[in-house]
């Protein structure tokens, strides 16, 4: 289990202590407060804290003196100083005396979070000893990334290998295979996991929105811009940026993107300060990017910059052994969200799902299960709850006979093998239907 980070807040203003206490408690830290430096030092004699967040200006002993005493006692302590009026002198003095960093009041919530995450990262790195390093590192659980087939185990292995590096990754695979989940898994298992995972759906961005969306803008940059707004690259600082549907971006966007990826710097719209951001790029596409490069519709230089590692997610039809696991998972997920008692699935329905080709992949399976739980009787998912009739034929039929067999079977299932209703739906007489059933050796699932 992860160690709970502890923070000691030292500030003479009660409202500041109160605010910071509430903020950190919600983040799951162990938090204590002291109203002056002397009290803080007394607390530190009997208890250890990973981070000390101290005001510089306090009555009696000030924050800088306290910092020196803490450092004299424990050199590797992480002390962050807070000041209402930051001056270069104060900052330099604090950093010279060993402060981890300093921050000016009031803080931007995002800056505070970043600062504490940086400190937390330092603590975790320090705590990583040789024993831990030699242990097998298991993948951090990412909900929804389900599968035990060989194909999926290979994907997870690749995720594990690539997560520890800083390389750009392109995830390829058909729509609905879970490319974003794989990207999240890479992030969650990387040293960047303490920082944001920012997702950008390139297909949804028009060129005109691009600049502000990716680079952000300054307050007053244009009418209505009342506050500064961070762009996606800035948000992803120290974390990962996921560019989905990368193949859809225009030529102009490709040039802009390449420039930012190379320099990792940009300027907010309406601003004049160059901002740098340390992000890792993970892209996804369901298109053949290499083919696009050959056709000249995707820049070769950008392709090679992005395509350092390629992870291909196989379609669901190539890992059908994962279907039972996925079905179980989605049943649990949707029963919970619909406040229904957990239900099962009968063997005929599961068998049929395993025979289906799922052109829409996992997303299609998920939608099917969700629908089945909504329309079902609340006991068990059966064939009649699954909307396989129309789609299944086109996937499994290889000849006209196959097509006819599958189609008749679906309509029989739809009408629970009621011959009269099925014949009526198929617009044939009952005798013709009986002949077809005989010809194709069709039987209800429970008689197979």
């Amino acid at each position, binding site marked *: 289990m992860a160690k709970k980070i502890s923070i000691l807040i030292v500030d003479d203003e009660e409202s500041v202590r109160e605010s910071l206490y509430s903020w950190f*408690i*919600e983040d799951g830290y162990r938090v204590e407060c002291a109203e002056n430096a002397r009290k803080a030092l007394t607390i530190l004699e009997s208890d250890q804290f990973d981070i000390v967040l101290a005001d510089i200006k306090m009555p009696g002993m000030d924050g800088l003196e306290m910092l020196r005493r803490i450092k004299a006692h424990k050199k590797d302590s992480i002390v962050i100083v807070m000041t209402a009026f930051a001056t270069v002198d104060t900052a330099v003095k604090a950093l010279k005396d060993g402060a981890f960093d300093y921050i000016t009041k009031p803080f931007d*919530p995002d800056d505070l979070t970043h600062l504490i995450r940086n400190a937390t990262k330092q603590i975790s790195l320090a705590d990583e000893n040789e024993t831990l390093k030699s242990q097998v590192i298991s993948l951090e659980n990412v909900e929804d990334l389900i599968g035990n087939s060989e194909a999926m185990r290979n994907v997870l292995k690749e995720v594990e290998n690539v997560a520890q590096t800083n390389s750009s990754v392109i995830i390829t695979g058909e729509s609905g295979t879970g490319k974003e989940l794989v990207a999240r898994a890479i*992030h969650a298992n990387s040293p960047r996991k303490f920082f944001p995972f*920012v997702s950008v759906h390139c297909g949804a961005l028009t060129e005109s929105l691009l600049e502000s969306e990716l680079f952000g803008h300054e307050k007053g940059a244009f009418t209505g811009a009342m506050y500064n707004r961070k762009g996606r690259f800035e948000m992803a600082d120290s974390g990962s940026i996921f560019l989905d549907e990368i193949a859809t971006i225009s030529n102009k966007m490709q040039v802009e993107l390449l420039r930012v990826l190379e320099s990792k710097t940009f300027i907010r719209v309406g601003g004049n300060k160059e901002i740098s951001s340390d992000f890792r790029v993970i892209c996804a596409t369901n298109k053949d990017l290499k083919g696009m490069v050959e056709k000249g519709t995707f820049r070769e230089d950008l392709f090679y910059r992005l395509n350092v590692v390629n992870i291909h997610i196989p379609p669901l039809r190539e890992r059908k052994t994962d279907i039972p696991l996925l079905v179980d998972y989605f049943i649990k997920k949707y029963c919970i969200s619909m406040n229904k008692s957990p239900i099962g699935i009968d063997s005929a329905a599961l068998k049929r799902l395993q025979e289906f080709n799922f052109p829409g992949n996992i997303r299609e399976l998920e939608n099917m299960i969700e629908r089945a739980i909504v329309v079902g009787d609340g006991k068990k998912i059966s064939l009649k709850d699954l909307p396989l009739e129309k789609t299944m034929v086109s996937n499994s039929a290889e000849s006209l006979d196959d097509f006819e067999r599958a189609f008749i079977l679906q309509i029989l299932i739809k009408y629970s093998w009621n011959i009269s209703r099925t014949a009526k739906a198929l617009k044939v007489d009952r005798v013709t239907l009986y002949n077809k059933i005989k010809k194709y050796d069709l039987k209800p699932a429970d008689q197979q």
Partner: protein
Amino acid sequence: MNLQNITLISFGYFEKTFLEQIADAVAGEFHCGLNLKEGHIDLSEFYDAGRRQYNGNSLLKYVDMIQIPEAGKTLGLFNVDLFIPILTYIFGQAFLGGRTGIASLYRLSNDRYGIIGDDGFLLDRFTKEVIHELGHTFGLIHCNQPTCVMRSSTYVEDIDQKDRHFCLKCRESIGIL
């Protein structure tokens, strides 16, 4: 654990249908009874002229003092710019494991950032914020699951990255499995 009733009190003007949609989503997520009430407050008492914002700590305490019979958890809904002394702004806050929280719509609107307004985004963001703060009142701390509604969000687009729902672990923690 038996979940108690949740009361949402709106302070200031909100569209009725907007609030009803929030209420439905909250009731659906917590699977418990939900009351929607209208509150009246003199917000000038909470206004900090120096910062041109409203003090979130004081508002939270004010809402906490409102006694509502049979209300398990209470969340005050505002449409003003909230701050706490140490932070430049907050979207909301709550007493961890307590009975009260507050959330504000103010900074969730695209319009504040000079981007074309989007009612769908606004509803989605506010719903998440309301569920998130209520989650704190049930004792939930921030969650590391990328899409869990209890994931910490420090800027507006960060809210868009998560779902409206609790992850399985958070659900288990508060007994809504």
